């Protein structure tokens, strides 16, 4: 039995329970138990109607829990009333669950955890392992998140932008432990795109697919980072790229540009270049200008300086960099790279070493350290 197929049903089943009058937190627990039961029972005894099976088991679990909890006596009375059959299509309800789990009253880490459990159908243990925290901590984070949103009305329309930020966070965290978070983010965004017609949802899905396509080429066998320009492009997943480009083109045609579409456009231009040298930096630069206009984000202006360096030469890149706050993450790394291209190797070597000290992650630090070491080896007078 396919675990992902099973988890795809999670939000629909949860929505049915909530529609029948179960409160969100208890319904969510009941659905989790039904999923565990399905994993146990289905391999030997597959149901004809998987969703119906899950609804029945989850609803029974919900009633059991409500009975067991004396404090929930009143709610039990509500639940004992014969429920109306749930709506056949769960599309709108699924959308409501995304809104609820990404509710602005939640902190980013709570919204991520709740989304992965209630919409993604992951267990607390899987989420805890993915984020390298104890299971007990993750359980508390999730139950707190559920309490936080307990007063939110289920049928209240939410803000798509908050949902997209949560999914972006899940994707960008990448991969650790048994759960492939990037793949999970793609799956959840794909499911969201099926539930709502919105160019930025399409834009984010395209962005994810285009980056996901490069995954195999991003790391060397020893785990070190391979920068875009040095990646073996034959290892890029062309199916994923084609799908990303198609989704992006359809979104752009609607003329409601947003930051995810612009980011996806940049990723698509990279994907389109047969070799790094053939990259259309002029067009990429135009998209960075668009992105800077849309977001005003200083990190975008930093990435733009890289594009300027490629399109108009390192001097122009350094000039673009000059106006930016040098405390921005990766500012020093960009400066090092531009100085190297400009032929100033001693400055570049010093800046690479400095950038390595400031790097926020291990792979980047190691990569920058190697860059500094590479230049310093060239610069050292022959010791032989």
């Amino acid at each position: 039995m396919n675990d992902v197929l099973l988890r795809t049903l999670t939000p629909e089943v949860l929505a049915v329970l909530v529609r029948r009058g179960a409160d969100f937190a208890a319904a969510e627990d009941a659905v989790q138990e039904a999923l565990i039961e399905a994993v146990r029972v289905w391999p030997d005894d597959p149901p004809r109607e998987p969703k119906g099976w899950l609804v029945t088991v989850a609803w029974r679990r919900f009633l059991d829990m409500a009975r067991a909890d004396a404090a929930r006596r009143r709610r039990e009375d509500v639940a004992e009333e014969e429920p109306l059959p749930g709506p056949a299509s769960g599309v709108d309800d699924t959308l409501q669950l995304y809104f609820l789990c990404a509710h602005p009253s939640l902190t980013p880490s709570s919204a991520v955890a709740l989304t992965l459990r209630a919409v993604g159908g992951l267990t607390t243990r899987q989420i805890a392992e993915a984020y390298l925290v104890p299971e007990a901590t993750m359980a508390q984070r999730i139950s707190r998140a559920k309490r936080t949103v307990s007063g939110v009305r289920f049928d209240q329309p939410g803000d798509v932008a908050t949902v997209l930020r949560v999914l972006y966070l899940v994707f960008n965290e990448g991969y650790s432990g048994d759960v492939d978070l990037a793949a999970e983010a793609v799956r959840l965004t794909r499911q969201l795109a099926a539930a709502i017609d919105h160019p930025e949802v399409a834009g984010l899905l395209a962005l994810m697919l285009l980056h996901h396509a490069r995954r195999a080429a991003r790391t060397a066998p020893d785990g070190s980072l391979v920068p875009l320009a040095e990646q073996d492009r034959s290892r890029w997943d062309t199916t994923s790229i084609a799908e990303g480009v198609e989704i992006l083109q359809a979104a752009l045609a609607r003329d409601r540009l947003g930051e995810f579409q612009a980011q996806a456009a940049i990723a698509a231009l990279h994907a389109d270049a047969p070799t790094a040298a053939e990259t259309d930096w002029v067009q990429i630069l135009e998209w960075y200008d668009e992105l800077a206009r849309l977001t005003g984000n200083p990190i975008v202006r930093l990435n733009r300086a890289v594009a300027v360096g490629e399109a108009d030469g390192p001097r122009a890149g350094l000039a673009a960099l000059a106006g930016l706050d040098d405390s921005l993450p990766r500012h020093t790394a960009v400066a090092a790279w531009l100085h190297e291209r400009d032929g100033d190797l001693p400055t570049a070597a010093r800046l690479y070493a400095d950038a390595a000290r400031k790097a926020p992650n291990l792979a980047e630090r190691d990569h920058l350290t190697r860059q500094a070491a590479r230049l310093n080896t060239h610069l050292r007078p022959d010791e032989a």
Partner: protein
Amino acid sequence: MAKYLLLKHYRGAPAPVNDVSMDKWTPEEVSAHMQYMRDFSAQLEKTGEWVDGQALAPTGMWVRYDGEDRPPVTDGPFAETKDLIAGWMIIDVDSENRAIELAGELSAAPGAGGRPIHEWLEVRPFLTGPPTITE
């Protein structure tokens, strides 16, 4: 969603405001301090921010490789001047500000006279995995 290490030092940190070593406190003050630390950890677990916490013995030594077929060389116990780590707590929080806020709370643990120690804690971010999206 970032992990931080809160480091507590036996020696080597700047002097705290309430600078009286623990052996000069009353037994009740020692108990109150320990209770504060336990409550702090329990609270962090409830907020879903707790990862790990350990205390270290002040004793220990330096160890290094001394070549093939030779036992490692040891040197110790530590000299009095050495910066000495007493223990750590690892937290998983949404922002650097939250890490600072929690370290501030931990530093308010009661000491002599039941007054906050105002101990200096070292706050160190973990290096993370690489983000998926880099350009």
